[in-house]
């Protein structure tokens, strides 16, 4: 039995040491990475956020739809695949205090009214868990931390090691000319796939009971408060959708944000009267052409309203 205990201690000690060596090595390597979605884009944002004037946040729809270069020369699109309210709100809270900045937050009603929303998307920031107190506390707040993370810090880099190495050796793009906006050039295959999905009739059931999730509401309120206290102009918007359904949700979101005194613009039906397959990659993502038309419209609106 003594030998078994010794073996367990040996495994714990060895794995703890190896873990720390791996963790600090990956820290060093990842700091040099400025391309790629999971690490590079986040690094670039953290390096540049204090000097930016306009920043867009939100899901992949924000990432692919908002051409921030049309809004300001010093701008960045921090929209990210798979991210949602928790991820975006945490990043907003990292902005510098008292610097005048415009925060454009892309929001979709589906997440706001999802009663099961648990802030899981904040895991996208886990690579900075042991390096940024705000990120750590936001992750802990929604209990999205892994208990093993207290012992094994390399968990911060779970699933990211190959991406870091790849982007270190061969960056996807030159970060100096990258502003976070990723337009989608639709290939012929993607076009065919989209056409075939349109032929399928999805039976979508809209929920009858539309109530904002507690967590979603908290995130929106906390961002509003942060912006008010730190000289930021907050604008929330929903970008176009090929065929907006469950319109009640959009209406309810509009009412909710109005009540909170937040500027909100619903563009979900932007292309409805003048639609074309060329504007889309799929039902929720615009093509470069569609995104360009939408971004132009945003620019006009923001100029008219004196936001930019």
């Amino acid at each position, binding site marked *: 039995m003594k030998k078994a205990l010794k*073996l367990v201690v040996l*495994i714990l000690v060895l*794995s703890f040491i190896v873990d720390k060596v791996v963790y600090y090595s990956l820290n060093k390597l990842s700091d040099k990475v400025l391309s790629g979605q999971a690490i590079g884009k986040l690094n670039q944002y953290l390096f540049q956020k204090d000097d930016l004037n306009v920043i867009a946040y939100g899901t992949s729809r924000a990432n692919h739809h908002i051409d921030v270069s049309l809004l300001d020369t010093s701008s960045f699109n921090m929209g990210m695949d798979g991210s949602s309210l928790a991820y975006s709100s945490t990043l907003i809270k990292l902005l510098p205090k008292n610097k005048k900045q415009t925060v454009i937050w892309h929001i979709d009603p589906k997440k706001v009214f999802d009663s099961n929303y648990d802030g899981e998307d904040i895991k996208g920031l886990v690579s900075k868990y042991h390096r940024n107190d705000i990120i750590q506390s936001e992750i802990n707040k929604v209990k999205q931390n892994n208990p*093993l993370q207290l012992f*094994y810090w*390399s968990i911060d880099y779970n699933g990211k090691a*190959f991406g870091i190495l790849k982007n270190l050796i061969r960056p996807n793009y030159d970060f100096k000319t990258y502003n976070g906006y990723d337009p989608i050039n639709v290939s012929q295959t993607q076009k065919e796939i989209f056409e075939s999905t349109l032929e399928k009739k999805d039976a979508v059931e809209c929920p009858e009971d539309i109530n904002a999730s507690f967590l979603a509401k908290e995130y929106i309120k906390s961002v509003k408060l942060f912006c008010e206290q730190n000289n930021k102009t907050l604008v929330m918007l929903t970008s176009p959708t090929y065929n907006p359904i469950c319109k009640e949700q959009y209406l309810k979101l509009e009412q909710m944000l109005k009540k909170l005194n937040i500027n909100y613009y619903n563009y979900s039906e932007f292309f409805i009267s003048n639609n074309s397959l060329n504007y889309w990659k799929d039902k929720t993502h615009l093509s470069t052409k569609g995104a360009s038309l939408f971004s132009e419209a945003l620019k006009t609106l923001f100029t008219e309203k004196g936001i930019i």
Partner: protein
Amino acid sequence: MLFNSIEYLIFLPLVFIIYWALNGDLKKQNILLLLSSYVFYAWWDWRFLSLIVYSSLIDYIAGQRIEQAKNQKVRKRWLLLSLISNLGLLAIFKYYNFFADSFAGAMSTLGWQVDDLTLNIILPVGISFYTFQTLSYTLDIYRKDFKATKDWVSFFTYVSFFPQLVAGPIERASNLLPQVESKRSFSQKWFNDGVFQISIGLFRKIVIADNLAIYVDSVYANPEIHNSSTLLLATVFYAFQIYFDFSGYSDIAIGSAKLLGFKFNQNFNFPYFSKSITEFWRRWHISLSSWLKDYLYISLGGNRKGIKITYRNLMLTMLLGGLWHGSSWNFVIWGAIHGIALSSEKYIFSWKKINSFGFLGTIYTFLIVLLSWVFFRAQDFGTATAIIKEIFSFNFIAPYVGNLNTLVTGLMMLILGLLFDVYVFRKKTPLEEVGGNMSFYKLGVSVSIIIILTILFYSTSNNFIYFQF
């Protein structure tokens, strides 16, 4: 409770410490195992514990009555009670909706409309496994191959022993019950075996299988939009996903049992190195295939009643084996493919007087298995045939990549897993004994490396595939 959960990471060491602290008091150790097994199961849904207790009670009594009975009629009656009780539960919980649905479908093709007969039934986790396990007990006693136990704690512990309760291996009473009933002593070699096998099992499941699952799930969710190369790649990935998922589960089960002084039989023995389907079934889910062979195939007459009856028995065994996996025609077809392949091999082997196809056999076996996995994985028969049709349209253009990082991680980990398999296969040491043969430091270093690799590359845990059966 899932093996790949934080709860199990606390549960197993806790049981381990208390168990060995009881200092060899067999009665107390068995009570601890029984209670902890019930806690393990109740973590999922405590209400279904009643089914395990019911099954255990019926077979405990039936086993004794069969043994005590003076005439064959009474013995048969008690065996029938055991069979009807256990298979009845399985029929209600697992197959009722399937048969009700199939009946309604058959009626509607004849022009008669039948009201919806399906019920909202939850499938209790592990029911197929523990049903087969307890049945082996009464069947063995009926065949006079095994003596009934008079210790109910031992018997109930045997049925519910947590490492194998929800997804096997299906341990026969003849192997496990004597171990439950006899004093166990701590073995350092078994401890080392167990620690190594658990860490390998976790790696196989949450690193290899779960990373491959991301690609497979995304392709199989919308197969109609993918080309031949994508569907073929997803099916190949699925073949390895299910292998590493289930063998990983078995590794953790066997390793956990070893820590507590129990030796389970091997459940997987590098099945994709098989040179024929016959050999594949000697290496894949061994505890199920040997159960089906001993209690179904041989009971039907095996190969003792002529060549035609042998083929019939093979087909029936494989069809029922398919149905055991799930209440869907796809599983029946999966079983049928294997049944046809086994029957064909039997015919060719006896005609050509050979017992393997050599190296080409490995490729042929993998292709047949691959084809059958399409039915196993696809949502329904229509989807499966559409996938096969698309693969055979040879539209082999660039495959869908999805998230490149996930795909690369899945591929790299798969290669690592396969290299490890080749290494152990060539060494001719069963995986179950690798840890015990390592030196103290080599084992410590190996397990530490596996832990770090797991931490760096694990994917968010999906349920073990075999839980649904």
